[in-house]
């Protein structure tokens, strides 16, 4: 006979937890699958309900923003280069411009990058003009707000400096977030700013920006379309009609790299993050070219069906490279095998203008001429998410922040927008219990994501009408083209023309 003692089954005191008895036998847990499925449905719906990716728009530009300069060593600072030659350094934490340089260049800004030096007080920003053919290095304390004495902080933000007092300055050096401001560049009148340094004298800031002079200027006959800094050394590369390597301290290029005698316009150039002397460029002749600055030569080049607008090296997989192509697709290449891309990423309905890897190298972001941003997993050819706003125009550059939490986009409408890289992620502290339940929900979604109900909720994205229509049209066009090809094949001699894999079509020729 079953006889249960109350002592075993009632809590020992009023505050004690209720004692639980478990029996894992499946017959006591009927409908296990449907119940779990129901939970997965709820989880995926919650996930979509909380998907609010847009964080903020950083304004201030008079013209469209055409390039972004992410400081790889600091989290919350990004520079945007406008179409009228204005460069604005934005603080992401404050969501305000730290510095505006109204006439950094005459005409469009071609590219922005940051120097690699660890000395935060002398942080330098390098901008390249697309039309005026100059490169300028700017140094200002405003890039590292909160740092009060001029020569105290030596060392980067992750390691302390070599002086004792620099330890004290680590907190207010604006390393991670900007929490202090001092715009009094010359005279120190000792007034504490109201609001803990968060208030900002905009006029003073603007005056400073207007009067700021570049510490270094390089001139060239040709305009610069792109610029990228070496990971550690004081050299950077520019893209004009050739690829040039510059030293920060010399006025003439160290070397000029060119593939054969080609006279194509190089649009973007990027250094590899791990194999730091390797760099790659994309050019107007639908080419992608690899260089090595140790040999000072162009190593190899591929010519593709369409021109690529941007490229990005994977930070964790040294051989993997991402190309943003004008044919609406993105391609990853393994540079050991340039015959065919290792993956094609389809989804945009306009030329892809910019792309950037997340710091983990598992995901990347792309911005397109179709006014959307898409986020991708490296392993799947379909985009994980798509972001758009009514006011966002053509996107010209995108970048991941170094913490991988946010994605930034620069668009035609003169705004730099901050988006969450995971649309439904909660910002702010998450308790253990909450994190556990979030993880549980993610696992459930993952397990049932092949099921139709869950999948349809998970993958459904609302896109603007124009993009919806364009997608539909594009799909129809491709479909009909393929059907036509199939029919032609059906009615031609057997084995005459075999279907060609999509990946084999993209690269026309590989040159060595």
């Amino acid at each position, binding site marked *: *006979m*079953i006889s249960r003692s109350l002592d075993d089954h009632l809590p020992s005191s009023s505050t004690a937890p*209720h004692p639980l*008895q478990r029996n894992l036998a499946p017959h006591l*847990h*009927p*409908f296990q*699958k449907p119940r779990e499925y129901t*939970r997965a449905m709820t989880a995926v719906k919650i996930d979509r309900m909380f998907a609010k990716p847009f964080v903020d728009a950083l304004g201030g530009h008079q013209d469209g923003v055409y390039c972004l300069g992410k400081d790889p060593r600091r989290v919350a600072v990004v520079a945007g280069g406008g179409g009228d030659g204005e460069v604005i350094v934005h603080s992401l934490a404050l969501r305000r411009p730290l510095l505006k340089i109204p006439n950094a260049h005459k005409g469009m800004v071609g590219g922005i990058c940051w120097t690699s030096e660890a000395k935060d007080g002398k942080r330098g920003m390098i901008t390249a003009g697309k039309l005026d053919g100059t490169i300028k290095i700017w140094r200002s304390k405003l890039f590292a707000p909160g740092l009060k004495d001029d020569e105290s902080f030596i060392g980067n933000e992750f390691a302390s400096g070599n002086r004792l007092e620099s330890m004290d300055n680590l907190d207010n050096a604006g390393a991670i977030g900007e929490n202090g401001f001092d715009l009094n560049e010359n005279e120190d009148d000792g007034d504490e700013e109201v609001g803990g340094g968060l208030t900002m004298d905009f006029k003073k800031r603007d005056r400073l920006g207007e009067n700021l002079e570049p510490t270094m200027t390089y001139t060239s006959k040709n305009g610069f379309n792109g610029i990228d800094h070496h990971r550690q050394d004081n050299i950077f590369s520019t893209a004009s009609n050739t690829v040039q390597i510059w030293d920060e301290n010399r006025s003439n290029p160290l070397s000029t790299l060119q593939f054969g005698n080609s006279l194509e316009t190089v649009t973007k150039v990027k250094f590899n993050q791990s194999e730091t002397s390797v760099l790659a460029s994309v050019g107007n002749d639908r080419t992608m070219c690899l260089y090595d600055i140790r040999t000072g030569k162009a190593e190899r080049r591929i010519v593709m069906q369409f021109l690529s607008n941007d490229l990005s090296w994977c930070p964790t997989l040294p051989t993997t490279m991402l190309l943003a192509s004008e044919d609406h697709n993105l391609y990853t290449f393994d540079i050991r095998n340039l015959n065919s891309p290792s993956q094609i990423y389809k989804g945009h309905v306009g030329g892809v203008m910019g792309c950037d890897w997340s710091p983990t190298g598992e995901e990347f972001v792309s911005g397109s001429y179709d006014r959307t941003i898409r986020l991708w997993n490296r392993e799947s050819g379909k985009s994980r998410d798509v972001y758009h706003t009514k006011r966002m125009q053509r996107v010209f550059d995108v970048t991941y922040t170094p913490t991988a939490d946010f994605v930034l986009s620069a668009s035609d409408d003169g705004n730099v927008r901050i988006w969450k890289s995971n649309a439904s992620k909660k910002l702010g502290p998450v308790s253990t219990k909450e994190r556990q339940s979030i993880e549980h929900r993610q696992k459930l979604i993952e397990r049932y994501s092949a099921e139709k109900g869950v999948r349809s909720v998970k993958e459904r994205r609302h896109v603007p009408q124009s993009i919806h229509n364009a997608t539909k049209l594009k799909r129809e066009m491709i479909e009909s083209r393929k059907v036509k090809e199939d029919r032609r094949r059906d009615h031609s001699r057997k084995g005459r023309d*075999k279907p060609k894999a999509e990946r084999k079509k993209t690269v026309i020729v590989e040159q060595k």
Partner: protein
Amino acid sequence: MDALLASAGPLPTKRPKGNNSNSNNNNNFKSNYSKGQRQRPTSHQTITRGDGSNIDASLNSILSNTRIPSSFHHSNLASGSGSTGSAKIRPDSSTNKIVDKKLRSKLSRVDINNKQAKLEREDVNEWLNKAVQGTKGDIEVDEELGEKTWRIKQNDIVENVAVNSSKKKFDLKMNDMGTYKVDYTKNGRHLAIASSKGHIATFDWQAGKLHSEIHLKESVRDIKFLHSEDYFAVAQKKYVFIYDKDGVELHKLKQHIDPTHMEFLPYHYLLTTVGHAGYLKYHDTSTGVMLTQIPTHLGSPHSMAQNSHSAIIHLGHSNGTMTLWSPNMTTPHVKLLAHRGPVNGIAVDPSESSAGRYVATSGMDGVVKIWDGRMWGKELRSWHVRNQITSLNYSGMGMLSVGGKSGITVYRDLTSTTNSNPKNQFTPTPYLTLPLPSLTASSIKFCPFEDILAVGHEKGISSLLVPGSGEPNFDSNEADVFETYSRRRERDVRNVMDKIKPELITLNTDFLGHVNESRGGETHEERNSRSFRQLGRLERLRINGKSDEQQAELEDDEEEEQEDGEQIQGGKKEKVKRKMKGKGGSTSRYLRKKQKKNIVDNTLLAMKAKVAAQKQSEDTRRKIASGEIVKEVGALARFG
């Protein structure tokens, strides 16, 4: 947990450190215990008492958490301490066939996890849920001396069980109230009774606390608890009414006219009723919306039961058929001619060995039949019962009670493997007989997680003891026998959130999450007008011979090679040609054609020479392979 571990047997005595310890050391070690002074015993050690008997300090411990203890974890690491010391868990060999590296590793990881979870679950069940000693807790008698379990009377049982248990046998005598129906909540804690003349009561039968008592003064045909004891539905003369715990009428369900039987599907929140008109109606009690009503076209049903593992409703009809229903189909899933007379009792076995697979039916023809839900063709066994059967019920451990005129008979092990022999043809020996002199058991229900059978009859209800009938180990996350107010509130919310959609009620419970193997398109036209590229993935794999099922069908490698060689287009399944080796080659075909024309020209001669040379080289190769001739390997080998 600790208590059970301890009672399962002593652990092998630990040796002190050092490999060269001998028996002397061991004795010293033991003697420390017997003195019992030097070392304070921990809760997990067995202490020897002065009189020599062992007591275990952990015997009185309380289960503190629900996590599987770490000792149960099967570590897959080489250095890990697997509890059984069994071999390393390996993924299924079929995963080796997957070419994609990542997919393979992912699937094999999933497979290993599943296997590990299964092992752990088995372990936990073995350690936690097995009876400490003896069998499943049912009555054991000495068969050789001619003792029979069915001769044992209720009074004998009451005298021999503990006081706690004997209290659970009680009778509620209600005269002139009509016949009674009974129903338990899912955790077996609360009981609802309803007489045919309108007397209704719900109470916590263990605490003896009455929740509500109403005299409706109209005929009542059935009573059912909804998801908790807070609400119950009553099938009254005209409609179904819902009352709360205090007996306040909450709802009148006007759509349910003339109800005779009710069932409640707790995971779907569906109240299912059927009335004299033979309409099966599903009503969602969480939203209050009538889901569907299905005409059975078989008149007023005589019995109704639900399969608690698949939520399929079983109806027994007057023409002897049993039908299986879900809200998703307007026709029955299964229609079965079960008896030669009205089917007046249906019960589905919820026990571990059956999990909703076995169904018992009884008819007016006085026969009880056991059916297997996997194959409805023929009953597993059937036998005649002398008294007129009125109702059937299965217990949590799979005992079947057959209630009828003047008593109830309880059977056990009706479908166990020992019974799957010609003996099945015979009437099974009853486990217990519970006579009710001059009474008819109109409704019988086993109490979940208790060894109790509640019987409703003309003179009230009786709660009888049936040892070994109830599932002893409940799971507090499913149905907590000792549920507190706060936990019930928590469960109410969670269960509503986990409410299963009625579309997921299927006959095959494993249906969800499987690959949809539709052939693509409704009609033949649709399926065949699409090009190869437009086909679904599975279809393309099937055509390429790369789907798993196809591979099983392939008979030999030759055919596979042949298929690979051919380029397949057009979506049509390529017919496998059975060629004889060497006959269908293009060369020999060419030769045959030429020779038919009987024209000998240079090309033919050249071709013949070529064929002959091929044949010869093939010959020599075969001979070398078989060792008939030895291949020349010296310097002269090049000269042939």
